[in-house]
């Protein structure tokens, strides 16, 4: 294969694995925002999800002499779900039951989440009596087991490649296909499946319709007999669980089961909030949106002759594109592209 093709393939794979982190984050946030709650705590919840999984698997791997990757994965998953749903519960208790301001509560959740995560990420191995950087190799291996389904096929074809020109091309295509679509940990596919399920749920089920009604006009939904409080709680907590998976994927797959105290999760969390806008609150659109963001973010690696300064300008692209989309949406004012109309407002039945 020529270098350009190889470069394009690496850009795509980088974009997809990077995009998956923000895809999880944005899917959770879409579900939450559909109930009318703008949760600016997504970075915090992704932090909580990441550290929850890491703590769980760390305790497991420390306790067992020869940790089984699959069990470690289950423990990590449980840790993530518990921690991120806990974050969602704090947020929904404050904003739904106590009707606190959503923006302020979300930002506080981000502060708390980053504090908890970086605190334990930095000092967990020390608290447990160990030294050095926290690391969970066994669990991480379960997450990034790159299943190359077509490996055997590729090997077979490339064996005959020297003899036949057709087979050589086929081998190249297969190899490219393999790299672009099949070289990731399983969570990349989980994210896509969740996106499709979420889209079906929101657009095709009566529960989804109820949820949209709650987000558009809670008073009307309430009058129609929908339990507004329950929908808001469930949407926020499920959303938090999905967003938390983004943190788990980042920790276990993207940085291979360790902790980096570099604020990356926070930056990715805000990118996830941006992606919700970019996708105009549609789960399916956020799949390719996430990969596009990933490609835009890493584009600077593939443009020759950039100074370090110019590289930073290129990293601005996802945010700039989001602003442009935001402006376009408000310009066109198409009904199906607008945010849920009660987004950010708390609901009190006795308000007139």
């Amino acid at each position, binding site marked *: 294969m020529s270098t350009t093709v190889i470069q394009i393939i690496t850009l795509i794979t980088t974009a997809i694995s990077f995009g998956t982190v923000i895809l999880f984050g944005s899917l959770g946030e879409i579900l939450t925002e559909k109930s009318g709650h*703008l949760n*600016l705590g997504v970075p915090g919840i992704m932090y909580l999800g990441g550290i929850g999984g890491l703590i769980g698997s760390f305790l497991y791997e420390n306790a067992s002499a020869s940790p089984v990757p699959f069990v470690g994965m289950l423990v990590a998953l449980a840790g993530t779900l518990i921690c991120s749903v806990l974050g969602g519960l*704090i947020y929904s208790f*404050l904003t739904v*039951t*106590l*009707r*606190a*301001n959503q*923006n*302020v*509560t979300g*930002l*506080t*959740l*981000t*502060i*708390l*989440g*980053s*504090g*908890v995560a*970086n*605190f334990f990420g*930095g*000092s967990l191995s020390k*608290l447990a009596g160990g030294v050095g950087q926290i690391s969970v190799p066994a669990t991480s291996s379960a997450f990034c087991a790159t299943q190359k389904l077509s490996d055997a096929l590729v090997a077979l074809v490339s064996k005959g490649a020297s003899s036949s020109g057709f087979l050589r091309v086929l081998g190249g295509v297969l190899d490219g296909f393999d790299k672009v679509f099949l070289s990731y940990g399983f969570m990349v596919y989980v994210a896509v499946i969740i996106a499709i399920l979420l889209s079906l749920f929101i657009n095709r089920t009566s529960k989804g319709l109820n949820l949209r009604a709650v987000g558009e006009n809670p008073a009307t939904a309430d009058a129609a007999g929908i339990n507004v409080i329950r929908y808001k709680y469930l949407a926020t907590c499920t959303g938090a669980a999905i967003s938390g998976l983004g943190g788990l994927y980042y920790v276990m797959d993207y940085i291979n089961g360790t902790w980096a*105290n570099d604020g990356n999760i926070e*930056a990715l969390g*805000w990118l996830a*909030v*941006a992606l919700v*806008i970019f996708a105009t609150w549609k789960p399916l659109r956020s799949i390719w949106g996430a990969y596009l963001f990933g490609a835009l973010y890493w584009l600077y690696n593939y443009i020759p002759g950039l*100074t*370090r*300064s*110019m590289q*930073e*300008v290129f*990293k*601005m692209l996802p*945010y*700039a594109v*989001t*602003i442009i989309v*935001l*402006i376009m949406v*408000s*310009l066109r004012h198409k009904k199906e592209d607008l*945010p849920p109309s009660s987004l*950010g407002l708390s609901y*009190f039945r*006795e*308000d007139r």
Partner: protein
Amino acid sequence: MIHISKRVDFTLFKGKAAWMNRFIGWGIRLLAVALSLVVCGVLIYALTKLNPVKVYAVMANGVFGTTRRVWAWLRDLALLLCISVGLAPAFKMRFWNIGAEGQVLVGGIATAACMIYMGGMNIPTPLLLLIMAATSIVAGAIWGIIPALFKARWNTNETLFTLMMNYIAIQLTSYFIPKWEHPKGSNTVGLINAGTQAGWFPSFMSKEALAKLDPNAWYTGLLKNTVGQPYLLNVLIVIAIVLFMFFYLKKSKHGYEIAVVGQSENTARYAAMNVKKVIVRTMTLSGAICGLGGFLAVAGADHTISAATAGGRGFVAIIVAWLAKFNTFVMILISAVLVFLEKGAIAIASEFSLSNDVSHIIKGIILFFILGSEFFINYQIKFTGKSGRRADK
């Protein structure tokens, strides 16, 4: 069953003066802070196995132990307060300016640029500081005007727009860092004008002048601890801003217009106010003051610039401004407590070799408690017993 309704008065003070009700409101908030300190104490005990009272003593010593520490506290307090005060008019107008972080950063970039390019020109310090302040104000104002224009013209969502502008500003900072890096290859800007200290906030009395004072005179220590300190200018600038903003919001025509637009844009339009003009004007002011915050951070504290110059203060300030209900004097109190907690938690962390991030945990817990307490001020809960259940049927 439980019945929740909007509170008009506290039962105890039914029909009495408003200040009495406000008094109870603050009582509830104080109770929330006390409760959160108990929770934090339990948490600290769990982590360090130390007497929480002793830990709080370590905190107090870490913040107020020496004159130097007190001034560091005042410096950080001034910066947080400056940003919070800058956000107040925007929030009072119900314009969610989440972009303070970015506005501070562009102000900081402008300040650093002036220090780097004009530092060698031998401009007298007051004039140089004025130029730096002016450019930082302009930079912050531009960062505030952009989302405001779109909000005013096309009703573009300002929460998300300003949020994105933060990251544009962060990348912009990263763009300048390699250009200004010192020493080469460090990927940091380093102390700007470390030798000449051009553009740094001066102390009002130099060390030589202080040394000439009679060491036995009663005023010597006082002067040393006030005008001899480098951060006095930060504090003075912010006091001026706080006073200005208090009167601007409470007593000026502009402040009244902001309040009306915040309550209801339709009412404002009916009263023949130019809503678009008010939005753009207010955000210009808001961005300008946040930009000045960048000037304080770079020229008055760090003497360098990095993507962490704003350090999340832009987000914390949002919470301060909201909790203070746009009252600039209440903001002093809240930011004082928050900066105390932050610095105190860092003191605990270094004393017991924990990570500094413990300060974010404590901050988060306390803010959650205060946020939750607002509910008990704004709503009243009645336990109606069985009769209520019958009424439901």
